[in-house]
């Protein structure tokens, strides 16, 4: 599916993954729809392929058979962006590549793939509804994720609206960095919002995510005022050197604890997304760091003090 810029953004959007049997992002057994594009650029991002709004070529060298066995991609590449690299693996010159994606079609092993397919609302929901019998029993449904789903506002809202019309349970993960008008509209079609608050310290926030946090916190306040009954799950990824300390977490807890229908969850840092940086030809900004288990436990205790466990 080649990149297309002219499409009806009300009906179509770029989706980079649809994942069934998701059980960590909202109640029950859910299908997670990952939308492309994100206004933030978090240094720990585990879905780096989500950040750019347009489709993007990925190359997983582990899956590649090696140029000693297969050169189908090199043969079809019009621009010469793909060449034989070291250790029988290919090199992609991304400056030359025009994203025509002929190589993806030619690749037998799926080592070359595209992150981001243009899909209609109906196509997405057709996929999502395949598992509807599981939602019935589990109270699950559709969850939008990303990237930042609201970076494709018309598509995301269109999806939620239509999902609601089809009597689906809806949830959305958001970084909160968007126009209030957009968030406001999305909330009308949500059963649950999962809202990331990464730090109360604006400068630090900007350093690690490329944006400051004022808009995010303002949106969260508005959200709580306007939709007191909407269940809200606030999540904080705990990142070593960024917010893995009691001061940062306590500040977040103080901000949210008296707000209506709020639950809170810490997500321990993990490095599972690191291979994907390589797939899209980027370096992992955080390098080799690890979360300290003891620290994580003490932060969890802190949270439990404020939010008694269910």
């Amino acid at each position, binding site marked *: 599916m080649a990149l297309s810029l002219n499409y009806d953004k009300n009906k179509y959007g770029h989706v980079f993954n649809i*994942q*069934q*049997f*998701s*059980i*960590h*992002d909202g109640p*029950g*057994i859910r299908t997670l729809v990952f939308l492309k594009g994100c206004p933030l650029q978090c240094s720990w991002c*585990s*879905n780096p392929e989500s950040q750019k709004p347009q489709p993007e070529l990925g190359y*997983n060298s*582990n*899956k590649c*058979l090696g140029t000693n*066995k*297969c050169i*189908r991609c090199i043969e079809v590449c019009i621009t010469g962006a793909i060449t034989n690299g070291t250790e029988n693996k290919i090199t992609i010159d991304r400056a030359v590549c025009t994203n025509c994606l002929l190589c993806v079609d030619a690749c*037998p*092993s*799926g080592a070359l793939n595209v992150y981001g397919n243009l899909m209609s609302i109906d196509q997405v929901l057709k996929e999502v509804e*395949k*598992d509807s*019998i*599981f939602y*019935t*029993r*589990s*109270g*699950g449904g559709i969850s939008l*994720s990303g990237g930042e789903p609201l970076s494709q506002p018309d598509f995301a809202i269109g999806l939620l609206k239509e999902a609601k019309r089809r009597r689906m349970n809806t949830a959305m*993960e958001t970084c909160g960095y968007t126009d209030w008008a957009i968030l406001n509209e999305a909330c009308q079609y949500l059963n649950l919002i999962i809202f990331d608050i990464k730090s109360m310290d604006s400068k630090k926030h900007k350093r690690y995510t490329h944006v400051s946090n004022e808009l995010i916190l303002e949106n969260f306040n508005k959200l709580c005022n306007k939709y007191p009954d909407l269940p809200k799950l606030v*999540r904080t990824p705990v990142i070593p050197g960024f917010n893995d300390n009691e001061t940062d977490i306590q500040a977040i807890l103080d901000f949210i604890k008296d707000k209506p229908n709020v639950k809170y*969850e810490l*997500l321990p840092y*993990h*490095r*599972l*997304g*690191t*291979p994907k940086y390589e797939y899209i030809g980027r370096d992992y900004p955080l390098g080799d760091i690890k979360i300290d288990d003891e620290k994580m436990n003490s932060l969890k205790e802190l949270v439990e003090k404020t939010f008694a466990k*269910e």
Partner: protein
Amino acid sequence: MSSCCVLSPQEVRLEEELKGIEQMYGRERAFKILKEVQTYRRPIIDVERAKYFTESMKQTEGQPLVLRWAKAMKHIAENISVYIDKDNLLVGRAGCPGRYGILYPELDGDFLDLAIKELPKRVESPFNISEEDAQLVVEDIAPFWKGKTYHEALAKALPEETLKLTYDPKDPLKSRFIVNETSSFRSSLQWVHDFEKVLKIGFKGIKEGAQKQLATLDPFSPVDNMEKRPYLEAIIIECDAIILWAKRHARQAAEIAETETDPQRKQELLTIAEICEWVPENPPRNFYEAVQSQWFTQMFSRIEQKTGTIVSNGRMDQYFYPFYIKDLEEGRITEEKALELLECMWVSMSQFIDLYVSPAGGAINEGYAHWEAVTIGGQTPDGKDATNELTYLFLRSKREFPLNYPDLAARIHARSPERFLYEVAETIKEGSGFPKIINDEEVIPLALSKGANFEEAFDYAVSGCAEHRMPNRDTYTSGCAYINFAAALEMTLYNGKMKLYGDEQLSVPTGDAREFKTWDELWNAYLTHQTNFIKHAFIQQHNIIRLRALHFAFPLGSALHDLCMKNCIDLHQPVIEGGINFGYFECIGYGTVIDSLAAIKKLVFEDKKLTMNEIFEALECNFEGKEDIKEMLKNAPRYGNNDEYADTIGRDIDRAALEFTKDYSHELGVHLDLRYVPFTSHVPFGRVVSATPNGRKAWTPLADGSSASHGADVNGPTAVLLSNFNTKNYNFRERAARLLNIKLSPSTLVGEEGLRNLVSFIRTACDLRLWHLQFNVINKETLLKAQKDPEGYRNLLVRVAGYSAYFCDLSPDLQNDIISRTEHINI
């Protein structure tokens, strides 16, 4: 340990179990018994059963078969060694202490001598047999059976075209693994006795019933004289035999008690003596006696004949319940005491080895695992939910004492209570894979449609791996065919021949597949072979039904069956008035065939990315140097992903088989229905199939049961269930069990929420009317295997909130990180 101590898989499993149990639980008695068992390093082949059975059969030649069988049982009961196990509260075993297997020369007597002769020479053999015993087998037992076994008779009876798909025509001891018969290595397909009858009236009651019937026979009737009389006499002898066997235990226990110095054990032995004096002759008076009575019946049944996967235990939580609740109410028993008794039974089960004498190698094989399924849950005969306190006790036992025995089977239905499903889910979460789940919402309507009444259908018991039996209504005991559907695929490619068997024309010629121009040509050729195989399976079955009746009798099973008693006819006879015959034939390699056909259809005939020639080249060299072709084939639509393209092909394969049986099974007087329950046969059946167009290498295992090919299901467990649903033809009643294994990562099950999701998942499987479900919780070992074999595990998902990845896509460093964390936290 020296290298001569190669452990069988069963031993390894037991040792692993022991390790785990030692660490976790303080169940003193059961643990002591297991420890004791372990001191006998290797399992022993005990020849007594074969010896006394043969001795008696020598004396009774010419008499009615059922009578001969009962007399043989009486002879065994009189002479076989009787053991009182140390520490155990239950008694009754079919062989010497430790782990043991017994021989059934009526099945394999024609080659038993060859197998046994080899044994002392084979250092790596996992079994021991004493020199005298080996000599006895070679000189006395085997020679008598030569020329008399069922196996030999069947090989002679099969027409040539059928024979060459079944055995090597030059050596009928060698299976072809194309259209295999399984009737010659067991006297009966899986089976369940009406154990409740023993508990209600005892063998004394059964005997008295037979005596009464005997008195009412027409003294002038030739049928009554020649058929009914010997049958009833056989039943009486059989009842006497089991009672005698039990009483010998009573005497022995009393004798040992006399010299026992430990006062507690002395008292236990005196109790055992008292109980064995009373049951199974009489109805038990309490829970302990009920358990002992059932155990005697079960063990005597094992001695009597080899039932496929061992005779199952039926609905234990139902028939033991009145005894349990009465004892509990009257203060005679506690939950803990009941658990101790049940667990004495589980450790006794684990000592029996289902010994198969392998015809292929002329050597003794390790015993296959046995599935003496204990059924729990389900519905009462009047259609209400059946779970009770005992149901939960069985689940607790499995959680706290995770031995592989018994095979616990939970019946679920639309109204199964939350507590039951939560406890089932919790037990699964423990990771032992138990219980397996059988779905009333699929099993019962099918049983009804095939002639059962509601009462019987609601009261079915799980039997064997995934089947069911309705005691007193089911009358079919015949072993059935295992059909290699992947071989049909190979013959489609090679014009009715197979690489392994060279130039031999095994199936009908369907032309050179390289020349096929359309999908329809390929599909029709495939169907020709599939149908041809089923045709020969049915021809086999015709012979099997006729010949088994001449070779096998089942007096114990008949004594416990209302219809056999009413008609005075042995259970192994083909026609028993009022019975329903549920039989099966097995599809092996389902996922392999679907994926192969889907790949060719898509890549050759639709997308035209490959030619038939290119596929053939890749197959011929087993994909060596053709990795790109292999990858293309593997990335085509595959079964197990809720992908309509592949699933449609699966449904068509299924339907073609169903149509055949719809047309012809009535001629056999049997519902010979399509089943996908592989046992472990997808491994040996894979060994005869060369490389297949789903990217599978030559001689490697086929897809098992109705599960996806190894690693092919990459869309998670919901897609696996839906593909299973999609490929079933719900408009046919000719369908039967489908075995489905689901892999779950532990993170799926974390906390209360994880449990809730698993319950929902199981309920959805129930809604989908899937027959069977069993879970494997991924553990450290799985991940280590995945590191070594990424191709086979490319469906392995690592899930955390907001993110998931395929395990095999991660770097070794990250993989190791996950492996080291798996035992503590979620992946």
